[in-house]
């Protein structure tokens, strides 16, 4: 019981004090869950990040669920996830009311006109970072280009693009393996 409460509180803290989500949370998770509490070993962090990255869904949620599960089973996973989600949820619900109240204020409208341009810059930067992280080979570039054209030009449902990319990846890596065997 104490374990669960502890998990909940630690992840509540992590959720309440990290800006930007997923990756921004990792140093804090390392400090709280590995160094202070010793729930996980330091070298496990890398593995947890790798799994969180390669399973669907928000990285922060994946990491919280995984650590909670390892430390205290199903309910550990439940309370860690609840902890990491709750601050966001409460803050955003509150902000939505404030947002609505000030929407027609002139200064706020101007500020958001500027912010939208700023967000575009943030997105370009995110795109650049992700581009740098992808493998540099012909297959990657083809998938990247095809996904872009499918959505930007042909307005294909992203669900199908995602499934298609996974299938192509599967086919491609089996072909590479076959060739390596020969």
């Amino acid at each position, binding site marked *: 019981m104490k374990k669960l409460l502890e998990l909940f509180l630690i992840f509540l803290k992590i959720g309440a004090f990290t800006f930007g989500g997923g990756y921004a949370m990792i140093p804090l998770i390392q400090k709280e869950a590995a160094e202070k509490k010793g729930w996980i070993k330091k070298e496990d962090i890398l593995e947890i990040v790798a799994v969180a990255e390669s399973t669907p869904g928000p990285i922060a949620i994946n990491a919280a669920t995984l650590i909670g599960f390892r430390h205290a089973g199903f309910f550990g996973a439940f309370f860690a996830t609840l902890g990491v989600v709750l601050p966001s949820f409460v803050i955003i619900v509150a902000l939505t009311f404030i947002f609505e109240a000030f929407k027609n204020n002139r200064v706020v409208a101007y500020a958001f006109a500027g912010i939208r341009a700023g967000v575009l*810059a943030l997105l370009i930067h995110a795109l650049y970072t992700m581009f740098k992280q992808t493998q540099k080979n012909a297959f990657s570039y083809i998938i990247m280009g095809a996904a872009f054209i499918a959505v930007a030009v042909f307005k294909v449902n992203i669900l199908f693009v995602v499934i298609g990319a996974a299938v192509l990846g599967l086919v491609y890596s089996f072909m590479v393996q076959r060739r390596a065997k020969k």
Partner: protein
Amino acid sequence: MIYLKLLLTFFKIGAFTIGGGYAMLPFIEQEVTKNAWVSEAELIDFVAVSESTPGPFAINIATFIGMKTAGILGAVCTTLGVVLPSFIIILIVACFLKKFRENKAVKGGLTGLKPAVPGLIAAAIISIATAVLAPDGFSLEVFKSAAFYYSIAIFGVGVVMCFKKLHPIWVVCVSAVLGIACGFIF
């Protein structure tokens, strides 16, 4: 039944995006505009708010869209929807972690999924950029408005700040101040 629709849509988004917050944005953008839950401009405003408030980006955006579309119960549905697939999948994966990491099918699928993400984000950026720079659609009128030019200037400042590795909150704050200044000047 709007609550069920919100829950299922965000469940789908949670289940089919790999790589967290920003990777979800193209999917969210497509669903939100298709269903007309919030406008493109509101979505962009909320990307900024999500960057400047604590917590995972994906949860912030999901909560906001649920809240705007159907109030607190809507927010509960979208948040639950986006969290649930993660939770279930991780519980399954955690039971045989080693096997999962070395599984050839998982590795193969990821080889295709990872490069698709930047492609999808680039597509989302195109439609977001159109909404930011030409909110009333592209025509010659766009080039006559001061807003078009100062938006590009603020965008430029933002890009420089991003590449100087300044925190997104600073980018949001500086753009807000520049936006207010430009709004009153022009």
